C-alpha cells in the first residue's frame, strides 16, 4: 500500500478510448492492500478491460462482499456504482439489482472466503439462476484479513506460512460453476494479464452468468514454498488450454492461423472470441468434457487456465422470467403497482 494518491500528471500522449477517457479515468482510490497483492493486478486488469471496451463507468455496478478481494472495487472504476454487501451476500444483492435495472453492467467481485465458505449457497444459486453478470473470484487460498488461515479453496496437502499442512478437501469454484450452469467459465492468474484481460472483456460482453476464478497470490500469507497459490507454483503448474483474443464488432479481424488452430465464437452482441488452441483436443463448448478435463488435470497437480467453457447462445434470468425490456426501475409506480382493482381482476381470472 501507499499513503499517497497517484499524481494526476498524465503523459501527454496517453491513449484515449472512443469516449475520450484515459486508462487513468477508470481507476479508483489508491489501494490499501499489501504491496505486491495479486488483487491489485486484477483491479488493473479490470481497468484495462473497461477502458478497451469503451464502457461508460457510470453504467457499471460493482458489488462485493467482505474480505481483501471485496475491498478491491474501491480501487477501480471510481465513477461507477458500488455496493459492499454483508459477508457472502453479494450474489443475492447483485441478483436483486440486476432484476431492478437490467441496463447496467454488473460486476461481482468476491474472494475464496466470501464465495466458497460463508457465501457458497449464494454463489451456487446466482449461477443456477443465470444472472447476467461477470463474477470474479480473487482466489488466494487464505483468509488474508485474519492472518492467513486456510480457506475452503486451499489445496489438500499445501502448507501454510507456519508450516501447517491443510488436510481438508478443496472446493473448486470452477467445477461448481460448470456444474451449476454458468455459461462462461474461465480461470486465470493475476500474474498473467495478457491472459486475464481478454477473459474479463469476454465476460463483460457475455450474456448470462460469467464466472472467472483468478488465482491471486497473497504475498503476505501464501507466497512461500509449499503453497500451491504462490507466484512461483502457479507459473510452474499453469496449464493454459487456450489463449483468448477478444474482438469488438468494430475491430478489423486480421489473424492468420492454420485451420484447426483457431476457434471463433460470436457472442450475442456481435463481439468475437478468438481462441487460439494450446491444448489440441480441448473443446470449450463441451461442458461435460470440460469438467472431466479439469478433474484429470487437477489430479496431476496442474492448474487449468483459459476459457474453459462458453455457451454463446445462453440466456439469462430476465429471459427465464420473461420480464419486460424496459428496466423495472424506470417503469414508474403506477405501472409497477397498478392498484387493488387490477389485483382483484387478476385474482378473479385465476378463480
Amino acid at each position, binding site marked *: *500500500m*501507499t*499513503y*499517497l494518491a*497517484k*499524481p*494526476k*500528471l*498524465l*503523459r*501527454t*500522449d*496517453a*491513449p484515449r478510448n472512443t469516449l475520450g477517457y484515459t*486508462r*487513468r479515468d477508470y481507476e479508483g482510490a489508491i*489501494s490499501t492492500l*499489501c*504491496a*505486491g*497483492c*495479486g488483487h*491489485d*493486478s486484477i*483491479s*488493473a486488469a479490470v481497468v484495462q478491460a473497461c477502458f478497451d471496451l469503451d464502457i461508460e463507468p457510470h453504467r457499471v455496478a460493482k458489488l462485493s462482499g467482505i474480505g481483501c478481494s471485496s475491498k478491491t472495487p474501491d480501487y477501480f472504476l471510481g465513477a461507477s456504482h458500488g455496493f459492499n454487501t454483508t459477508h457472502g451476500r453479494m450474489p443475492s444483492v447483485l441478483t436483486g439489482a440486476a432484476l431492478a435495472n437490467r441496463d447496467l453492467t454488473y460486476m461481482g467481485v468476491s474472494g475464496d472466503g466470501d464465495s466458497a465458505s460463508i457465501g457458497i449457497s449464494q454463489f451456487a444459486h446466482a449461477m443456477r439462476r443465470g444472472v447476467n453478470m461477470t463474477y470474479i473470484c480473487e482466489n488466494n487460498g487464505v483468509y488474508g484479513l485474519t492472518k492467513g488461515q486456510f480457506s475452503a479453496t486451499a489445496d489438500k496437502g499445501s502448507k501454510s506460512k507456519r508450516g501447517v499442512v491443510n488436510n481438508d478437501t478443496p472446493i473448486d469454484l470452477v467445477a461448481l460453476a460448470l456444474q451449476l450452469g454458468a455459461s462462461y467459465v474461465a480461470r486465470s492468474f*493475476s*500474474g498473467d*494479464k495478457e491472459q486475464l484481460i481478454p477473459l474479463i472483456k469476454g465476460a463483460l460482453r457475455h450474456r448470462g452468468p460469467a464466472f472467472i476464478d483468478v488465482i491471486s*497470490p497473497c*504475498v503476505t500469507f501464501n*507466497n512461500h514454498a509449499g503453497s500451491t497459490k504462490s*507466484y*512461483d507454483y502457479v*507459473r510452474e503448474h499453469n496449464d493454459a488450454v487456450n489463449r483468448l483474443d477478444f474482438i469488438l464488432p468494430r475491430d478489423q479481424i486480421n489473424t492468420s492461423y492454420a485451420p484447426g488452430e483457431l476457434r471463433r465464437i460470436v457472442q450475442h452482441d456481435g463481439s468475437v472470441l478468438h481462441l487460439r488452441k494450446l491444448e489440441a483436443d480441448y473443446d470449450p463448448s463441451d461442458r461435460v468434457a470440460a469438467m472431466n478435463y479439469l478433474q484429470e488435470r487437477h489430479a496431476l497437480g496442474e492448474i487449468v487456465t483459459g476459457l474453459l467453457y462458453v455457451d454463446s447462445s445462453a440466456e439469462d434470468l430476465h429471459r427465464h422470467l420473461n420480464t419486460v425490456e424496459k428496466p423495472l426501475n424506470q417503469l414508474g409506480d403506477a405501472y409497477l403497482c397498478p392498484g387493488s382493482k387490477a389485483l382483484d381482476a387478476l385474482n378473479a381470472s385465476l378463480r
Partner: protein
Amino acid sequence: MKPTNIGGHDYFHKVVDCQWACPAHTPVPEYIRLIAAGHYSDAYMINWRSNVFPGILGRVCDRPCEPACRRGRVDKEPVAICRLKRVAADLKDDITGRLPRPQKTNGKRIACVGAGPASLTVARDLAVLGYQITVFDNGAAPGGMMRSQIPKFRLPDDVIDEECGYIIGLGVETRYNQWVGSLRDLMAEGWDAVFVGTGAPRGRDAPIPGREEAAKHIHIGIDWLANVAFGHTTKISKRVIVLGGGNTAMDCCRSARRLGGDDVKVIVRSGFEEMKASPWEKEEAIHEGIPIINMRVPKEFRHENGKLTGVLFEIVRAEYDAKGRRSLIPTGEPDEFHECDEVLVAIGQENAFPWIEKDIGLEFDKWDMPVLNEKTLQSTLPNVFFGGDAALGPKNIITAAAQGHEAAISIDLFCRGKKLDDRPPPQFNLVSQKMGIHEWSYDNQVSEEERKKVPVKALEKTLKDIKLELEMGFDPFMACAEAERCLNCDVETVFTGKTCIECDACVDICPTECITFTANGEEDDLRGRLKAPAKNHDQALYVSEDLKTGRVMVKDENICLHCGMCAERCPTGAWDMQKFFMQCAEAGTEARRT
C-alpha cells in the same frame, strides 16, 4: 537489448535531464530540495562550486536546463530552475566563511586575459590550489561582458561585484584598465601558462546602402549597450529600430525603451519561432510594449542630409530544403519602409584577436579562430589555453564557466607535467533514500501546482529608470512552492532483478505507465511493445537482466515522475529509490588510477 549498465555515472546522470543539459552539470535537483527546505546557503554553495556565479546566472542564464526539464514533458511548463537559483543567492546568509582558503602558494604564475566569466572561473579554481593568478582587463572592474552588455535592469552591478569579489578575494591579482596589446609581449613575461578569455568583442555590422551616410544614427548593439552600461549613453531618439533577433537585440530594445524610445520595434529576418532570443526574453520585450516584426530583411538605410529617416525592408518567407536548411525567399510583395530616428544593429557577434601575433606559433583556422583541442582547450602553443566565447565561438555565461573549469584542470595538469588527456572523473554516489516502509528522505508527493511567475515591479516605474531591476525574485513561499514542482529526477529508480517476483505491482501503480515486463528484443521493437510506447528516442530504456519467467523489466525513463510508487508497491524491495549525486571534477582532483 543488453541489460543497462548502471554501474558508472553516465546512465543515471542522463536521467537527471537538467544536470545533463547544464554545461557545468550543476546538481540541480539537490539544490532545489535545499531551497524547499530553506537551506539557502547550502543551495548557494552547491551552485557556487559548479557554476561560480549563482546570483548572476539566477538572473540572466540561458538556462539550457529548463527546456530539458522532465516536468516540461508531463506538465505545461518546466520548473523555474533559473529563478530558484536566484532565490538561493538572494536569501542566503553571509557565505564568506564557507569559501575555500587558498593553499600555500606553489610558485606557479598564471595570466588570465580578460576578467569575464571564463577567466574568473579559471582564477577561482586555480587560486584555491595555490597558483598565483593575475587577471588583466581593459575595464575598471571585473565581470567582462556580464558587466558591459547585460542591462542593469536585468543584472544590477552589486550582484556582479559580490560574486566577482568572492573570486578576487581568493588572492587574485588584478590589473584593471590594462589593455593587453600583444600576446608575444605577455608571454615574454615568463608566465607558466596564459589563459585567454577575451570573449567575442566585435559586433557584426549591416553593410547595406546608406550605412555610412547615416552612420551617426546607426549603432552596433553591443558597443551601444556597453556605453549605456557605463553611463556614456543616457538617451536615445523617440523612434528606434533594432535589427536582429537574439538576446542582444532584446537587451537593446528594452534598454532603448528606458532611455526615451517611445516607439521601439524589433525587426528580424527570421520567423518568430526561429529567433535566437530565448522565449522568455521575447516575452519580456513584448510585455514592455515592443513589437517584434518578422520575415523582413533590411535593404537600405534611408537618409536625408545625413539624418536617418528609416529603414527599407524586403519581405521574405522561409523555405527549407531536404536537409532542413533554411533559405529566405522574397515574397514579391512591395518593400516595406519603417520610419525611425536611430537604429541598433544586433545581428551577431564575432571573435577578434588583433592582439595575438600570427607568427608566435599559435595557429588559427580558416575562420580566424584559434586551433584548440576541444576537450582540453589547449592551443597549439602548449602553455596557452582558451575559454568562453573566445574559445569555440560565442555561447553564453554558463558555457564560459564550464570551459573555465576544464581549462583550469588542463592548466593544473600542464603545470604539474601531467598528460592533459587524463581527465579526472566526476565524483558521484548513489544512496538509498528509504527511511521506513513508506517513508523516503525526499518529498515524493508530486506537486500539481503551476509554474510560479516571478513578481516584477510596475512597468511605468521600471521604464523610467534603466538601473532599476525589473524582477523582484521569488519570496520564500513562492520559492518553496516552485521548488516542490521539481520531480527529484536525481532520486533514481534502481531495479534489482534477482529479488523481483514479477507480481506486476509496479506496473499497475505507475502513474505514467513507464514500466513493462515483456520478452526482450531489439530497441526499436521493444520501444513499440511497451505498455505506453516509448516514442522519445532521446530518453533511455532501462532494461533489466533476464528474470525468472525469461522476460525482462523495461522502464521508459522519459516521463518517470520519480514518485517512488513502484518502490512503495514492491513487496520484495526489488525497486529502490536511490539518490544520485554527481559533481564534476575540479582542478586538483586526481585522475582515477588504472
